[in-house]
């Protein structure tokens, strides 16, 4: 019996993976993201890079060569090394900020949808505020007040990105709470907290999951924007910080494309890979979108 079940589960996972493999978008996204994750983890170990290793005057803005595969920056540091170190930081910030957003969005969405009435009205007006507030100025103000450490950036992005998730989760909660198994849960004497956590949350989870991936892309983009505008943490240089320095040092006018382009391209690729993955999962988890 146990075995049959294990088999069945294996088959389900296999089916899921097969369908996923069939999706070109999903696979492209997974491969690109996979490369970046591997680079972020292994890169700094394999490739020696020290952000404090300023070269001599002759090392400034060197074009790509055998010694520096992607050239050097305005302070004579290796661009490839900075890029690898930055990938870890950008991904970490993006993912952690997304987790904050998701926890907030899911909680507010489920609570709002489940209780309804005044609680719903209050939480949804709050959501509206966050939806219509121009997020960039808001983030800039928050980052300026809190100070530019990497944790504050994560917090700021997390706190501003939950509104759309809350909306979607609320809508789904409204539909789920009318189903009979919720009535059954009430009938067996389950408390509201128990119903929300054990019965509604697992049912909205696919939605949260698909949203997570899409919000991750946004979070990475937000981090890049903030850092580019100078709100980044200079101790943890991300791709956004690289773009910031490249811009400030006038890399574009000097023609130092090797300093300006790589971080930009990396941001685009990672955001694209998350978006691809998001669409692919959406298609997998939402049978209505499946092309038959």
């Amino acid at each position, binding site marked *: *019996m146990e075995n049959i*079940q294990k088999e069945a589960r294996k088959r389900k996972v296999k089916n899921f993976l097969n369908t996923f493999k069939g999706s070109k978008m999903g696979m492209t996204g997974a491969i690109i993201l996979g490369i970046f994750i591997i680079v972020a983890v292994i890169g700094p170990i394999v490739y020696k890079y020290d952000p404090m290793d300023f070269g001599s005057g002759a090392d400034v803005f060197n074009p790509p060569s055998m010694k520096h595969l992607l050239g050097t920056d305005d302070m004579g540091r290796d661009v490839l090394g900075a890029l690898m170190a930055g990938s870890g930081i950008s991904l970490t910030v993006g993912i952690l900020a997304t987790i904050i957003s998701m926890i907030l969005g899911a909680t507010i969405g489920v609570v709002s949808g489940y209780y309804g009435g005044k609680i719903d009205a209050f939480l949804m007006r709050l959501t509206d505020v966050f939806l219509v507030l121009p997020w960039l100025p808001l983030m800039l103000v928050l980052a300026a007040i809190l100070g530019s450490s990497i944790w504050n950036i994560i917090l700021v992005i997390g706190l501003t990105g939950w509104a759309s998730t809350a909306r979607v989760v609320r809508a789904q909660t409204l539909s789920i709470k009318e*189903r*009979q*198994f919720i*009535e*059954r*849960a*009430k*009938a*067996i*004497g*389950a*408390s509201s907290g*128990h119903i929300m956590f*054990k*019965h509604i949350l*697992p*049912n909205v*989870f696919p939605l949260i999951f698909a949203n997570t991936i899409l919000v991750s892309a946004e979070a990475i983009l937000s981090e890049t924007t903030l850092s580019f505008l100078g709100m980044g943490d200079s101790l943890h240089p991300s791709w956004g910080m690289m773009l910031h320095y490249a811009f400030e040092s006038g890399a574009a006018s000097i023609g130092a494309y090797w300093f300006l382009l790589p971080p930009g391209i990396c941001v685009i690729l990672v955001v694209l890979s998350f978006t691809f993955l998001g669409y692919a999962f959406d298609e997998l988890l939402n049978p209505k979108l499946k092309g038959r």
Partner: protein
Amino acid sequence: MSLLEVKNLKTYFHIKAGVVKAVDGVSFTLDEGKAIGLVGESGCGKTTTALSIMKLLPPEGRIEGGEILFDGVNLVNESDEEIRKKRWKDISLIFQGAMNAFNPVIRVGEQIIEAIRIHEDVSYDEARKRAGELFELVEIKKDLIDRYPHEFSGGMKQRAMIAMALACNPKLVIGDEPTTALDVMIQAQILDLLERLRKEMKMSMILITHDLSVMAETCDYVAVMYAGKIMEIGKVEKVLENPLHPYTDKLIKAFPDIHGEKVMVESIPGVPPNLIDPPSGCRFHDRCHCAMEICKIKEPEIIQIEDDHKVACHLRGNCHE
């Protein structure tokens, strides 16, 4: 003392169009170990009565009056928290169409364990063992407790639902059309099962159904409801063999008799009245073939005609075509 005593229960729904008097002055008693059936057309207040007893009414619904004495305690005045503790432990519910009553993403066994652990301070393993035993009790293989609801057939889900209803040894089980969504073979099995378990565990039961044959088989008493009121109530044999209310009479005739001659089943013309503005006098008068002048003006009191047999009709059983 009776286990359950419902006295003049009034449950109204406050909706935009007005106040729907879904249950309007319903009284009945139920002794320990007995079963009462509530019959009647759709929308006559059967389910609302049951949900009032569990206090599971939707937000628009409110108990406006009357008493529900369960074990001597008036449930109407109990706080939500007190009621929450009583649900399932004392009174459990078999849902109308068990198909949807299980959470699709949680294993069936888990959901039974959940019900046990909400009310009893037992370890997970112990609860799981009990869930296994409950499965055997309702004749499902024990190994299936780790299956998901969609892997069960309709009959199995209904059995699992019954297993869940029995999880905390309740004193009263309310069956809200427990067999409506099933085919006749499975219906018979489920009813036998319910009947057997009820006798073994000495539970009381309220059975809600449209099906008079189901009622005759399973219940000791029957209450015929129409437009939020009880029209006739009594021992099941007495009510079915000698219906005193024209509505009961019609209900019985609307049901084909398997041994009788081939005749067209009768139907009752018209529809149940709008309960926002119920008809004056007897609520059945505009559909009753024996209606008299007084029926339009004065609402009949419920009166005892013989032992264990009461009716709310001015004719007191003297309506013959």
